[in-house]
């Protein structure tokens, strides 16, 4: 623990340069913009910015991208409360009570509750990372290929068991992700797989293009279909009401605590912020004394999902850094970024890239404080921006998405791909296919396959290696149990009534 604190102090010395603080501010502002605009969310905000960071120093790049993520998480709540339009899938639950509050003229109060409780949630998530990541990483250093494969399997299996979507549709999403991830050159044998002799497919399909299609264009089409009309509540902020709300916050300590616990858990296991915020809202409604007021402008209904949303968003960085397994779609994109910058995600980062790891963790503290302050300060500005008609903003977002898809690899073919995945994303969203597992499977499916094939090389093709020692045996058994969970649950007649219709992990 003490060595972690020391490392964190070192991290602050890396993160607290003028250049990095400027990057944080820029990242947070871009993030709020991305979060506020419907159709641009955290996963594809990070994706769009990624190609521009290829030439940057990895520490600076990750600070910029994570700050954008925090900004997007905050910005998503602004539109949820003021316009009843969730800027992010993970802030859908915030609309339930946030918008009614704004309609009652309590917008300032709702926004303050949302941002401050989100800030607290984020802080708890970061403290958990600070305290645990070192220990998890040094534990993971003992992992060989079989252990890694078991952990990957566990990540996929927990999506199926707890992802919140219909298990069958989660399996389709995962399998599609694996399939798209396999296209191109096989890393073990060097042969071409699933390229159908099309030259454009030899380098495979980039997950970045897929994210831009699924989360960017697909989301836009959904917004368009509903005929977006920004009928906003009054966005003027009243400083007195703000202070009043902050003073009232301690009364909701239980909701905050519950939100943090749900969020940290869902972030570390790959449930992601969306599932976390819904779950936290549901729990609060069932357990709170004010439960009957939920849906009609109850502050606790804003605090519960917001706390969970942000603690899940930050906690998702823990498995990404220490194991190389992303806990949400956005961290999956960042993980891909790490590999592009030439870093090898996983426990070795903590030894070889101390500056990077602790600089990033330290920047998360400051980034979230900056996010909270800027989110509150810029509410009027971004609210005013939404008064510009969607008939102008929509096409501009499309251009940004397509340009982003092109910059990934400089390939005109990727524009067609982005378009195709946009249409697929629209239909998948309509039919409640979860999208996050697809991205996760694309990013780490390759690594999972490599780990599996290396394990088989070690054991001469025997699956027994997955139960060769207590550690890997436990992991494999839990993974199998999770895989069979939906079947078992159905058999027991305890079919989970999934309150979560939206996809987990934004």
């Amino acid at each position: 623990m003490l060595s972690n604190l020391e490392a964190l102090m070192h991290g602050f010395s890396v993160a607290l340069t003028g250049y990095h603080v400027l990057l944080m501010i820029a990242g947070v502002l871009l993030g709020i913009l991305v979060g506020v605009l419907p159709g641009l969310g955290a996963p594809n905000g990070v994706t769009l910015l990624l190609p521009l960071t290829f030439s940057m120093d990895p520490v600076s790049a990750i600070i910029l991208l994570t700050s954008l993520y925090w900004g997007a998480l905050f910005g998503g709540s602004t539109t949820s409360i003021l316009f009843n339009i969730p800027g992010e899938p993970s802030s859908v639950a915030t609309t339930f009570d946030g918008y009614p509050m704004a309609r009652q003229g309590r917008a300032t109060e709702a926004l303050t509750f949302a941002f401050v409780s989100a800030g607290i949630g984020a802080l708890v998530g970061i403290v958990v990372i600070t305290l645990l990541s070192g220990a998890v990483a040094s534990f993971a250093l003992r992992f060989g290929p079989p252990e890694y494969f078991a952990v990957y399997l566990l990540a996929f299996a927990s999506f199926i068991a707890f992802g919140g979507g219909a298990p069958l549709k989660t399996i389709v999403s995962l399998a599609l992700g694996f399939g798209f991830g396999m296209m191109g050159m096989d890393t073990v044998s060097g042969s071409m797989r699933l390229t159908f002799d099309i030259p454009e497919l030899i380098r495979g399909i980039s997950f970045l293009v897929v994210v831009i299609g699924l989360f960017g264009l697909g989301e836009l089409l959904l917004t368009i279909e509903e005929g977006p009309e920004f009928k906003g509540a009054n966005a003027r902020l009243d400083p007195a009401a703000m202070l009043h709300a902050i003073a009232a916050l301690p009364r909701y300590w239980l909701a905050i605590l519950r939100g943090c616990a749900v969020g940290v858990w869902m972030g570390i296991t790959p449930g992601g912020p969306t599932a976390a915020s819904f779950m936290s809202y549901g729990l609060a409604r069932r357990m709170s004394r004010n439960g009957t007021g939920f849906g009609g402008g109850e502050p606790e209904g804003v605090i519960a999902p917001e706390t969970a949303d942000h603690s899940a968003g930050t906690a998702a960085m823990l498995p990404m850094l220490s194991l190389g397994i992303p806990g949400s779609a956005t961290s999956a994109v960042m993980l891909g970024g790490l590999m592009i910058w030439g870093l090898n995600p996983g426990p070795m980062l903590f030894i070889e890239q101390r500056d990077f790891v602790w600089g990033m963790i330290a920047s998360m503290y400051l980034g979230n404080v900056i996010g909270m302050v800027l989110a509150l300060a810029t509410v009027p500005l971004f609210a005013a921006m939404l008064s510009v008609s969607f008939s102008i903003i929509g096409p501009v977002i499309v251009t940004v998405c397509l340009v982003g898809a092109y910059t990934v690899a400089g390939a005109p073919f990727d524009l067609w791909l982005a378009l195709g995945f946009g249409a697929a994303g629209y239909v998948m969203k309509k039919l409640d296919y979860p999208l996050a597992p697809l991205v996760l499977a694309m990013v780490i499916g390759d690594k999972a396959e490599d780990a599996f094939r290396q394990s088989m090389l070690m054991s001469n093709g025997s699956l027994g290696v997955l139960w060769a020692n207590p550690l890997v045996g436990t992991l494999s058994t839990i993974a199998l149990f999770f895989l069979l969970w939906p079947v078992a649950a159905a058999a027991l007649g305890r079919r989970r009534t999934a309150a979560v219709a939206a996809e987990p992990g934004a």
Partner: protein
Amino acid sequence: MLDRFRLELAFAGVILLVGALGLLGSAGLDTGWASDGPQAGFFPFRVSIILIGAAALVAVNAWRARGTLAAIPVIDREGGLRVLRFGLPVLGMVAVAQWLGLYVAMALYLLVAIRWVGGRRFATGLAVALGVTFASFVVFEKWFGVPLLKGPLETLLGLG
């Protein structure tokens, strides 16, 4: 206009097709298990099988619940038209970009989408189109040094 039952079936069909393509693609590879474990085609083959199986199950589930699902509209006429009106110009932009480059395609798309789809004034459309295109040029070519797709017009102007 479209009910959930039909859309479920249609998309399950698409997934089935993707799975079949996967089978086709892995047919030329060694899908077996040798002494050093799974070969190159092992996973593509099995993932395709899983896709086909899962798609079939989705379809069966949808069929069993067809009564309820058929009563749920997923896209109404108006919404569907809005999506088409918004989506077709995007398709056009991608097609034009392959031929004339991204900058020209972007400017044309923005003008069409804002003026004719969005119903704004011509001047507004033109201003946004030129503004965004110019800003993209400065940001990508000058600041970040990331060249975007260029066509004959840029070559003519000596910018390509």
